[in-house]
């Protein structure tokens, strides 16, 4: 597979996915420009995670097309695609029997990159963990925040242009969470990442993303930059969602 390249764009067109009788994605179309971050928000079961997982072929749509960097993902090898796309799951998903260093080295190792160990050290430095003191520990010996830092390091170690994050900070306490959000903003800028972030927290979406897509029952209710969304909710549902989140336009950084 050719390199994803320097101008990655994510795009979904008319994506449908059905489990049993209920459609989970009911014709979703959206795009993410190079270097931008899109937040997917909505209630549980709205299809946020399912949509996210279409971009690295963990989910195969029943209909519609998904492009990564202008290429239909169905034309790409799924395993090779996943090695080119960073991924941070809920709860970190670190391999408990591997050291922190080996965990972070995972993707460079899978891609047979010659300097995998060095890449892991660099990634650990980037998330603020000294490779010397943290590299030899096991995930069980870390705090929840440290584990999510390792998960972030693992997602970016091989230098992907695209990163997918599935409620990465949902399980953290408020202070740790704020630290992680700051860290993520810094990483995005530094590495010029294109990112899709699933969150149920509108404050987090407004803080971290360039665009917010509100999903409802598998369809995009509204997609707009945070300020525009807050100023002009397109539907009563979006207005209601904003009201329940007690979020106001001056919350935008």
């Amino acid at each position, binding site marked *: 597979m050719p390199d994803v390249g320097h101008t990655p764009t994510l795009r979904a067109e008319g994506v449908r996915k059905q489990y049993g009788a209920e459609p989970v994605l009911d014709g979703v179309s959206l795009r993410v420009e190079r270097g931008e971050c899109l937040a997917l928000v909505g209630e549980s079961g709205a299809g946020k995670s399912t949509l996210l997982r279409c971009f690295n072929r963990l989910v195969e749509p029943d209909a519609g097309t998904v492009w990564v960097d202008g290429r239909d993902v169905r034309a790409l090898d799924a395993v090779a695609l996943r090695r080119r796309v960073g991924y941070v799951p809920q709860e970190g*998903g670190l*391999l*408990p029997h591997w050291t922190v260093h080996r965990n972070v080295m995972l993707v460079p190792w899978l891609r047979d990159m010659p300097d995998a160990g060095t890449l892991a050290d660099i990634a650990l430095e980037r998330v603020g963990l000294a490779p010397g003191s943290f590299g030899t520990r096991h995930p069980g010996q870390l705090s929840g925040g440290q584990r999510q830092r390792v998960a972030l390091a693992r997602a970016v170690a091989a230098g992907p242009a695209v990163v997918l994050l599935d409620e990465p900070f949902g399980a953290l306490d408020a202070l740790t969470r704020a630290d992680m959000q700051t860290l993520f903003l810094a990483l995005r800028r530094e590495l010029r990442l294109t990112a899709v972030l699933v969150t149920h927290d509108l404050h987090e979406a407004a803080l971290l993303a360039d665009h917010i897509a509100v999903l409802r029952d598998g369809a995009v209710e509204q997609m707009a930059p945070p300020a525009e969304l807050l100023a002009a909710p397109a539907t009563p549902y979006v207005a209601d969602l904003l009201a329940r989140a007690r979020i106001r336009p001056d919350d935008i950084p």
Partner: protein
Amino acid sequence: MRVRAAAVLLVITPLLVGAQSRARPLAPPRAQPVVVASKPFAESYVLGEMFAQVLERGGWTVERRLGLGATEIAFGALRAGAVDVYPEYTGTGLVAILGEEPLADATRVFARVAEEFPARYGVRWLAPLGFQNTYAIAVRRGTADSLGLRTLSDLARAAPGLRAGLSPDFIGRADGLVGLRRAYGGLAFAQERALLQAVKYTALASGAVDVVDGYSTDGAIARYRLVVLEDDRRFFPAYQAAALVGRRLYEDDPAAVVALGSLAGRLSEAAMRRYNERVEIGGEPVAVVARQALADVGLGDSTMTAGTATASGRPGLLRDLWSRRDETLRQTARHLLLTVLGLAAAVLVGVPLGLGLARLRSGAAEGAIRAVGVLQTIPSLALLAFMIPLLGIGVRPALAALFLYALYPVVRNTYSGVQAADPVAAAAARALGMTDAQVLRHVRLPLGLPVIMAGVRTAAVITVGAATLAAFVGAGGLGDPIVTGLALSDTRLILSGAVPAALLALAVDAMLGVVERRVRPTM
């Protein structure tokens, strides 16, 4: 780990080959030993030993498989050519093997089996040895006196107030309890429990049961002064003892058949009861009693030196066990060998099978595992009996059975272990680009290893226990003294097999416990 496992295989493979070549030497037919077997009770041991000694005195080399197994196993081995001769009863041949209606007339029974067996099974009956050993139903003298029991018809009337302890063999057979009920109408006891030969008379004497089945030549009948109830409706068929000879011996070695024939008509019921009593109650070695029996009928040889001739008194238990240490050590080594090989085969097949199933749909995998589990429910003796026509007797059928018993826990735990191993980590590894095979190899397998090892440990303990049954198919091991001890009511002999077997199970479990902790990944 892998290197060590390979080393173990290198060590045990020549042992296995050695064990098999010892069971079936590749020598010319004349030099091949005559395999003499018996069923697992005292009289059969004595008769088998008499056959063996008669042959040995005639210059034949004899391989003893005494106590090999009940009718199905002993006869199966004879038909398969794994055994050359064993003592059998004409009535058993007629009813249990030919499946015909029982007959009370001894001459007609012998004529019938002598005619049918060569054509149907390729085995021949030699002329009967002279005594009958038919089923006997016995009660304590006190029970007989207080209830006025003299005949089986009397017993049928009193049965609802009595508890019966019957051998499993007798309960299931057409010429046993089933037929007896038909002949005497009802015979419904207040309680019926299956008791082994070895404990039946003790249970009767101690009052735990009121009625037992036995054989008319049992030594214990005299010892406990039991009353044998008269078979007034002539139900029990004639049970003449005779040598049953396999095709190879009959066709290739007529001289051996003639030598065995010299015993025909020589043994009376009274004499046989005496020999049985000396073995069952006196605890005398079978070889000594058999030699005495041969001397009594004029076939003795006073200059014979083989076997242990000293039977004067019994030494203390510990000294007794100590004096058997070489034997015990050899049996333990054989037992361990059977266990290790059966278990190794189960691991070599079971772990890959479990891993393969982990990649199937869960419904299909569960179905396959349940099918393996069904093997576990086959009674072990039945499984061994199935194996004989396919694999003969000796190490091979025993290993096949041990393998099948050990398979289920290994497959089940391998499957469950890798399925349950940290699903979040496994999903994340896949999302970051591990192939399914890599997820299995690097995530599920190492995380599931403790559960897999726990399954291997369970299988190992099961195998140590099941390997005692290997004695029933002549594979040796610690089951040998247990089976012989049960047959001869020799508690010490039973202990000399049961105690090392229990210790072996504990040792194997402890050892694998250490391995299980070692393979637990650092987290």
